Structure formats: C-alpha cells, structure tokens
C-alpha cells in the first residue's frame, strides 16, 4: 500500500497533468491525512490564501467594507468553511475536477499542489463548493460525490476495470452556476455527511484547539505577552498576517479562534531569536519566539525551569505545547517534535522546557504535501543547519540560567526562613548557649551555600540573596553578644537540682570546673558538653 501511495504522490509532484488511475484517488486522499482532522487545515489554507488575494485588491474597491474572515460551522454531519476572500472564477471551477492541478505560486501562498481542494473526499460522502468573485454575476457550484465514486471504483476493480482518474472524477462531479450579485465575493466549502469514523471533525472543541494550534491566527487578548510577540513577528516575518477565524459552537455561540496561549498557562516573558543566512548577511532564514513556564517569584512571574506544561489530566495532555513548532505562512509544519528531531542532538529534554514558534522566512523552504516536514532541498538543509547552530545552544544556556536563578532563589528563600527563625529566637531570648555551636555552624554552612549561588543573572534574585546574607550577618553578630542569649549554665544550680550530698557535689563541681578550664577558649563547646552531662544526670536521678 505504501509504495502504491508513494508512487501516486510522485506522479502528483512531478506532473500537474493527471497521470494516474482512479483507484489511486481515494488512496491518495486518505493516505495524505492520517489524522482526519488535518482535512480542515487544507480548507483553511485555501481560505487564507483567498483572503490574502482579496486584500491585495480590496483597496481598489472602497465600497466593500466587509471584514476579511474565515468562518467554520458544523451543521448536522457537515462541516462548513466560509471565507469572504477573492472567490473563484469560471475558469477555476473546472480545475477542481483535476487532481493535483494548482496554479498557486510556491513561496507565495500557504497551500499548493491542488490536492487540498479535494481533501474532503477522504472523509465525507460529498464535497460541495460554492464560490463567486467580485464583479462576476455568477455563483459557481461544484459537487464531488465521493462516496459514489468510491463505490464505483470498487465495483470496477472487482470487474478488473481500472479507469484513469479524470473520467471517473468527471462522472462523479458536477459543476453549474446560478445568478448572483456581482458585488459578492466568497467561497463556501461543505464537507457533507462526514463518515462516523471521522467524527472528530464534527466536534467544535476539537476544531477550536486544532485550528488555534496549527492555523494562521493571532494571539488571544487573554495572553498579555501576545501583543509583544505579534508585534515582533509583524516586524520580522514578511508574510505574517494572522487571519480572523470564527467557529460556531453547537450552542449557537460564535467564538474567535486564537493561538492556544493564555495567561492561565503561566508563561514567562517571551524572548526572540533570529536565524540568519550566513551566506547572505542580514537576510533572515527564520525568526523564533520562545518562552518557558513561569511562577511568581518576588512578586513577578519568572521562568520556572521545568518541562513546559499546561492544565490537563494526562501527562501527554499537559505537555501538548512543550517544544517549539515550525510555522510557514502562519501554518504549522510538523508538530512540536519536528524541531526536536531536526535541531537537537543532545539534552533534548531542554527543548521541552520552552514553548514557541519558529517562523520560516526563507521562501525556498517548502512544506511537504502532508505538511509533516519540509521538502528536502538546499533551503531546508540551510535552515536546519543554521537553526541547529542557534536554537539549541541558546535554549540550553537559557535553561541553565533559568535553573541557576531558580535554585539561587529557592536556596536563598530556605536560608532566609532559617535566619528569620534564629532572629525571632534571639529577639525572644530563646537561644541556649549550648545550642550556639550548632547554630553558628549552620550559619556558616548557609553562607557557603549562598556563596555557591552567586552566578544568578537575575538582578532581583541577586539583590534578594544579598538581603538574606545581610540578615544572616545580623544574626551572626547577635549570637556573639552574650546578653542576647539565655543565661549560662550554673554548676551550683544543677547540684541543687540533683539534690547532691556534700561529697558528690564537691566531685561534680571539680569535674565541671576542670571542663570549664579546659574549654576556656571555646565556651560554646563547654556549654554543649555541660548541657549533655546535665541532661544525662537529670535523666538518671531526677
């Protein structure tokens, strides 16, 4: 099966004139879309191109004030894709009957090769397209009876008949026109009576998420960093032109589709990266934005340093936006594993610390027909090579920096809690002389740990570290002031407490005085030992 399909694709790629058999048509259309929801992408791509073409001439028609938009709705078992773009002309309609025929200009428009226009035949009983262009008084209708064609091909195959594609397609398609207002310009695609096995196409939530993820849409107003990213993309990516796409939910609500990012996802401030052409200085091959998850640190959202994740039940669901994704004309090419596979050779997990997009600027880079990768050519080789030199090292360094900063803060925070505790104890006169040695050692250890986290690049975290150090030094100074500690250990009081008779008391006093003399240079040590003896005697005799 695979070789059969490859052969068909080869034909498609090499020759826009139809050269293959009818039996290949359903195979081709079905094989192209392993995930049937990808069929929608084809029509959004065509609609997006139609809007771009309309925008090129719309200034000449000032009376037309319609907002260029793509609207998707579900009715019964049909998915409808409407755009008020350039529309089709009388010459365009018969071309729909020719598989693999396209006049789209590679490098200028998102879709090409002409297969996408018939993508719907892979998933539905019928494909109906209605279109008109500005100034044309005709509304053109095209119908492809896909289920009938599949049955016809199957019946013929049983009889050993293998017809060429064109006559079969013509037999199962119909084109006609009706009158329309010449000022109208739009296209409506109806993918009618979608197969039960492809019912994800009829689920509005699935469509919203899918289109937001792969489509040429803008950032949601609910993602405050979106405006900045959009502004940068507008400036650096010549063909960046997000489209207005609406989707009607079954409950009658019409929602605008945006990229999937929102403030709820807790995303840190985005960063940007240019991937330039070394052989043509100044020319961009691609432009990338990226960001990690964030958590609130010192009153500000800062990169948190872990695999990028969002709300969700299963791990896979939570990590669905982890990693970067290639974009071409605003559409995703491949999924988030493609940059991982093509750019990262080591520390791949660090690639997942970030979410973001790599917008390909070089027009010589073209997507494969299923949009799972780019066509293997010199432009792709150059893109991957240069992106490999830039993206992983920068992201790895940033990941390290995020990690260092996060650890610096976490450690400083823990140490600060400890210092605060000692400070409070001191203020309440609650530190025993016998505890001094341990506390001082602990302070020294904390200072050493603070010292190892000096390389933070975050100035505010650095300032916080200094603040913690100063607090520790204050505590340290106070510990050296006997007035701030609990009164010292008394041999007489202990002897009294143990109710010793004269002789043991004398012996006890001699021992303790000897110890006191012995540790005269290290009183903290003496107090610690005295406390231990005191405790042992109390446990035994009181």
């Amino acid at each position: 099966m695979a070789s059969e399909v490859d052969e068909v694709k080869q034909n498609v790629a090499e020759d826009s004139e139809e050269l293959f058999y009818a039996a290949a048509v359903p195979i081709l259309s079905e094989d192209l879309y392993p995930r049937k929801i990808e069929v929608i992408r084809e029509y959004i791509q065509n609609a997006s191109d139609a809007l771009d073409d309309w925008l090129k001439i719309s200034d000449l028609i000032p009376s037309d004030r319609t907002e260029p938009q793509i609207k998707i709705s579900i009715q019964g078992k049909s998915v409808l894709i409407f755009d008020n773009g350039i529309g089709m002309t009388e010459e365009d309609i018969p071309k729909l009957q020719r598989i693999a025929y396209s006049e789209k200009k590679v490098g200028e428009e998102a879709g090409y090769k002409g297969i996408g226009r018939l993508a719907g035949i892979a998933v539905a009983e019928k494909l109906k397209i209605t279109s008109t262009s500005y100034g044309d008084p005709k509304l053109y209708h095209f119908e492809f009876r896909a289920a009938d064609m599949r049955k016809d091909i199957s019946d013929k195959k049983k009889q050993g008949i293998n017809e060429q594609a064109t006559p079969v397609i013509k037999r199962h398609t119909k084109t006609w026109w009706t009158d329309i207002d010449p000022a109208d310009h739009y296209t409506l695609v109806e993918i009618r009576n979608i197969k039960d096995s492809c019912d994800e196409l009829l689920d509005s939530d699935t469509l919203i998420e899918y289109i937001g993820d792969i489509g040429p849409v803008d950032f949601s107003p609910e993602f405050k960093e979106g405006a900045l990213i959009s502004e940068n993309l507008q400036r650096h990516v010549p063909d960046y032109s997000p489209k207005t796409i609406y989707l009607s939910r079954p409950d009658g609500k019409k929602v605008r589709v945006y990229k999937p990012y929102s403030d709820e996802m807790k995303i840190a401030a985005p960063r940007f990266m240019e991937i330039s052409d070394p052989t043509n200085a100044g020319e961009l091959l691609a432009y990338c934005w990226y960001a990690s998850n964030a958590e609130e640190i010192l009153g500000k959202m800062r990169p948190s340093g872990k695999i990028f994740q969002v709300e969700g039940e299963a791990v896979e669901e939570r990590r669905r936006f982890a990693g970067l994704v290639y974009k071409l004309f605003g559409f995703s090419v491949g999924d988030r594993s493609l940059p991982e596979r093509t750019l990262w050779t080591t520390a791949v997990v660090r690639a997942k610390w970030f979410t973001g997009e790599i917008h390909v600027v070089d027009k010589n880079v073209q997507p494969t027909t299923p949009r799972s990768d780019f066509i293997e050519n010199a432009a792709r080789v150059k893109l991957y090579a240069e992106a490999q030199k830039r993206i992983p090292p920068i992201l790895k360094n940033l990941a390290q920096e995020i990690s260092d900063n996060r650890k610096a803060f976490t450690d400083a925070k823990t140490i600060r809690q400890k210092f605060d505790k000692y400070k409070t104890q001191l203020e309440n006169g609650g530190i025993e002389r016998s505890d001094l040695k341990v506390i001082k050692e602990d302070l020294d250890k904390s200072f050493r740990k603070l010292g190892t986290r000096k390389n933070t690049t975050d100035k505010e975290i650095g300032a916080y570290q200094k603040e913690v150090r100063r607090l520790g030094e204050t505590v340290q100074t106070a510990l050296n002031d006997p007035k701030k500690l609990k009164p010292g250990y008394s041999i007489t009081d202990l002897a009294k407490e143990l109710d010793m008779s004269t002789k043991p008391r004398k012996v006890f006093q001699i021992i303790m005085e000897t110890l006191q003399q012995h540790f005269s240079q290290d009183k903290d040590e003496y107090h610690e030992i005295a406390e231990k003896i005191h405790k042992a005697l109390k446990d035994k005799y009181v």
Partner: protein
Amino acid sequence: MRSTKLDTSFDSNPSKDFLRREYDKAIISQWRAELGKPLKYFGLPAWKMLDVIEWQGFIDRFTTIEREEDQQHLMFLKANVENVEHRLHSLYGEFDDILLNGRDTFGHRPEWPYELVNLDYFGGFIYADLSRPKALRKLIENQAIYEQSFLFIITQQLRDGDIKKEKSGFLKDLGRSLKSGILDTALHAPVDEIVSWYEDADIPDCARQTLYMNYFLRDWGEAEHFDVACRPAIIYPGTGGSWMIHFVTDFRFQSGVGHRVASNQSLLELINLGLLEARGKGFVPTRFVQPKLSIRKRK
C-alpha cells in the same frame, strides 16, 4: 458549464413581503414583548431565509428544515453571508417525517421547545395519508411537553378541493360541537345553515380552509393545554399563479390545568373571524365573504 435556474417556488412577491415585513412582524414584535426574551424559531424558511432575516431582531436561534440538499447548501451560504450562521440549526429531510420521527435524515433532533414556529410550505394541509395534520399535531404535543407558549404561523397552498371526504367529515364535527354547546335546540338551525353553506361545492375552498385550519389548530391546542387565539386567515396570490393562505395563531400554555383548556376565544368568534385578502402592499376587500353565525334567543 451549464446554468441552473434556482427553485423559485419560495421566492417572495409583494403580498408575501407585506405579510412578512408588516403584518407578521408586528405580531411577532408583540409576542416577543409578551414573552420578554428573544424567540427561538422553528420553520421552513427556504434557503433565502427571508423571514429569519426580516425578523432577526426578535429571534435568537433558529431551526430550519430543508429537504433539498442543494437548497440546504445555499441556506448555509446565505447564513454565512448574512452573518447568522452561528444561530442556524439546520435539519435535513421532510418536515412531516422529522416531526413524526423526531429526527432528521442524519439523526439530528429539533431543539425543542420553540417560541415561534413558521411553516411556509408549498402544498396543502391535507394529504391522503394525513401526514401533515399528524405532523402539526405532533409539533403542538412537543411544545406542550415543555409547557412552552408559541406563536404559530402557517402558510399553505389553496389546493385541497379534491379531498372532499375529510372536509365533509370535519364540517359535520363542527356542527356537532357547536350544537352540543347550545342547549336550546331551536337555535340549532343557524348552525346547520352555516355548516351547509360551507359544504356547498360552489363555495371557494379558501373559505372552508380558513375555518377548518383554525378549528383544527384550536382543537389540538386546547387538548394539549393551550389557550388558542386564532386570527382571520389571509389569502394572497403566491408565486407562479397559486393562491396561498396564511394563519397566525397564539398558543398560550395553561400550566396546572389537568383537563382540556377552553380558549378565551369562543368557537363562535372563531367561525366569525372570516378572511382577509392581501394584494401588493396591503389588504384589499376580499371576494369571499362568509355568512356570520349569530346565535341569539328568538323572541
């Protein structure tokens, strides 16, 4: 490529425009005010959805039924062009089948209940299999299940003259109903007179249809706990030389009533509603004037 003339059987004309834009619209506006919320619409608007577009200020969501695939596709197009596609809920199949079976060809159901029902169908009320009356009755039953008051607009073709038996039976029932409410048998004579007037083969069918449609609507509505208020039927020239008849009826659900509802509008008032005729941009004196039934005690 060939050109195709679109089905024009549902195209509008000045009389139809007048009813939609002025007569119906005023009633719908009042109905919307009475219910205090945008109306959910159920109907057969044809692909141009002229009624939905005209009344969209009063309508929220609308369910349409279309039996022609190409017409349904054009309806999708129209909805998108008019920017109401998100409010459209389109069912595919025969109206009667959908109402009687509860589902369309693809297994989708109407979104019961509705506050405005507009059935503008090309064809008459009575067919040999009585599927249309059964479907209308089912619609009223469904509304009753949800205890939902609604405005019921029906437009149909005047072409039922051939189904004599059903109508004759209906008129006999009507006579019996009227007489059963009048204890003084001496007053039964005017009832018989008016029934025989309607039975007269020379009487134009629109007069009969006016009476029996309103009578049926009232009868079915009352049985399902609705207080039914009929209006005079309106006849007007349709597209392509046919004559159409138009009914607008209020169905107000009476909750907490265990028995059949007696509408505020009496049967006598219903019989005397008569008929209006619309032509062009307004009403004109109708040629079909039915006798009024007057029941007063004889001196």
